[in-house]
């Protein structure tokens, strides 16, 4: 990544400031991903934007002279961005590059979940969850905390569990429900299974609301969670494709759009 490349517009840089994680992606002139990096967003998106910049500077990517598209809920807090694009458009673009230009993208984010339908590589319809954490990564985090396990452990535990119903959609109510299940002596594995099924069920309903059709692609923070991917495929009645880069789909889409900027 030389400065000349950036100046001549041969690199595109995407910065995706999510509620939980900040992702950066750099693409070469042919749109191929040359670098991707993730860091926690923390309290301030302004700080996260600054940390993203330093991280790229360290990798010889002269941020200030490059074309930068910012996205994610902290997108307006990126002073060095040349353009701001919503994460829906960016996830759509990124997923189209990773998987294909037709299909349904499911992005399970930290604070919201989106179902994005692609046609000809463009977003033509999308649905987002309502203003609550049901069916999001945040829901899983809170429940894992409550069960005293890490994120990866939760999935492993759930795989061993029996189907258990957690009926509350609201994170706060679901937490009380989990507490009462714990109190009743329900095995932890069963509760973990119930927690993951709850998220997957909510996401599948959202996909149906959007009129989503196969092929399905999963992007966002849960794409390395094999159990979630598997269960989601069962619920949707079609396999869900994902890959490690899918976590960076928003940043990748932003980087691709940066490449197109004059």
């Amino acid at each position, binding site marked *: 990544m030389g400065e000349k490349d950036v100046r001549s517009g041969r690199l595109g840089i995407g910065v995706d400031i999510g509620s939980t994680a900040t992702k950066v992606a750099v693409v070469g002139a042919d749109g191929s991903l040359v670098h991707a990096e993730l860091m926690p967003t923390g309290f301030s998106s302004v700080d996260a934007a600054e940390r993203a910049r330093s991280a790229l500077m360290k990798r010889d990517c002269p941020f200030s002279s490059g074309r930068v598209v910012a996205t994610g809920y902290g997108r307006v807090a990126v002073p060095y961005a040349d353009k701001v694009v919503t994460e829906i458009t960016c996830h759509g673009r990124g997923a189209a590059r990773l998987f294909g230009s037709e299909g349904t993208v499911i992005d399970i984010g930290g604070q919201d979940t989106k179902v994005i339908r692609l046609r000809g590589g463009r977003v033509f319809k999308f649905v*987002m969850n309502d203003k609550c954490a049901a069916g999001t990564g945040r829901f899983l985090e809170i429940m894992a905390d409550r069960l005293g396990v890490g994120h990866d452990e939760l999935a492993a535990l759930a795989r061993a569990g029996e189907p258990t119903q957690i009926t509350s959609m609201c994170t706060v109510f679901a937490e009380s429900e989990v507490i009462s299940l714990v109190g009743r002596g329900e095995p932890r594995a069963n509760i973990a299974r119930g927690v993951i099924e709850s998220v997957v069920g909510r996401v599948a309903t959202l996909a149906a609301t959007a009129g989503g059709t196969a092929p399905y692609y999963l992007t966002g923070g849960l794409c390395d969670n094999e159990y979630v991917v598997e269960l989601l495929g069962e619920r949707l009645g079609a396999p869900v494709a994902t890959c490690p880069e899918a976590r960076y789909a928003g940043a990748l889409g932003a980087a691709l759009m940066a490449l197109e900027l004059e």
Partner: protein
Amino acid sequence: MSDVAAIELPRTFEEFNEQRRQSFLKVKDFKQAGGRLVGYLCSYTPLEVIDAAGASGVGLCGTSDEVIPVAEEVLPANLCPLIKSTYGFAYSQKCPFTHFSDLIVGETTCDGKKKMYELLNELKPAYVLHLPQGRSRAHEREGWYQEVVGLKRALERLYGIQITDDALREAARLRNRLRRAILALYDLQRSVPPAMSGVELMSTMFAGTFNFDVRAYVESLERLCEQRRAEAATAGSPISAGAKRILITGCPVGGVINKVGATIERNGGVVVCEDDCSGERTNRFMVDEDAPDILRAIADRYLQINCSVMTPNDDRFAATLEMAEKYQVDGVVECVLTACHTFNVESARVERAVEGAGIPYMKVETDYSAGDMGQLETRIAAFIETL
């Protein structure tokens, strides 16, 4: 009360708020000078009857969240913000219009409002019009006519007057002139780019609900229309030619002008058509002012309004598609106020109709609070990016 020159219509949301404040100050003088004031909420309220009683009709629909916490002392939290805000203003005595109204005219549109009026009636006399569930059966039309007759009698009793057919006919002529003035203003939005921002259009429409003098309001609208037409012809439109043309439909948008309207326009869109109850949805219908039975003609006109409280309400879909074509819209945004079941359920059919016509559609469900501003901005911006 023909202070015609004094009415300047709001161009921005800030001006709109300021004007509303001013009209709150004026209402006391109006009452002290012996003016008759009747509060109303719904666009089904036959305003000609109020006009013909020599009273001024003022809209009482709550559009602010400031009194919602107070309203929730009595009303459940999971209720439509318009209902909570309306009741909250009456309950906290913060709305001078409500305070100075001689009577509040309600209507059995949705369940939430219907039951709220019973509570409101404890604070202020409320006369509730029984709106039918539909329009397709003869007894529904006849029943509604009898309701309008009942309102006329109630106002006659209240003021000790006789409402004559001549007065009703004159009121119908003036109200029709107002509707034509509004339609002429809408017509300016058909050009590319449109003559005005949607926020201006929405604020202007809503300003009509707090002007006491219909004639003065009509004249100011007619002037505004001429002025905007001339400006567009000479200086050009203030709206960028590439702005995506949005039709806004669904619940009344008076309380979300800033939240939804301004957000659309901050993100590269422009509201070219307001298909709601203070917009083209209702103003497209005229009273047959030469009808032999003028009161019946007034009743008939109002029942044509395509609100989701009616079943069936198929004419709404056709009307929305007609507007979408007329204004060459790029996308339809349906705004549903939290817990408005009728519009929320009906949105599934609106979505099908709009998308069936090849027009992108998005529904947003929101209330008057700022809590979901971030999400709303992302959704609206993303929708406009797809157009």
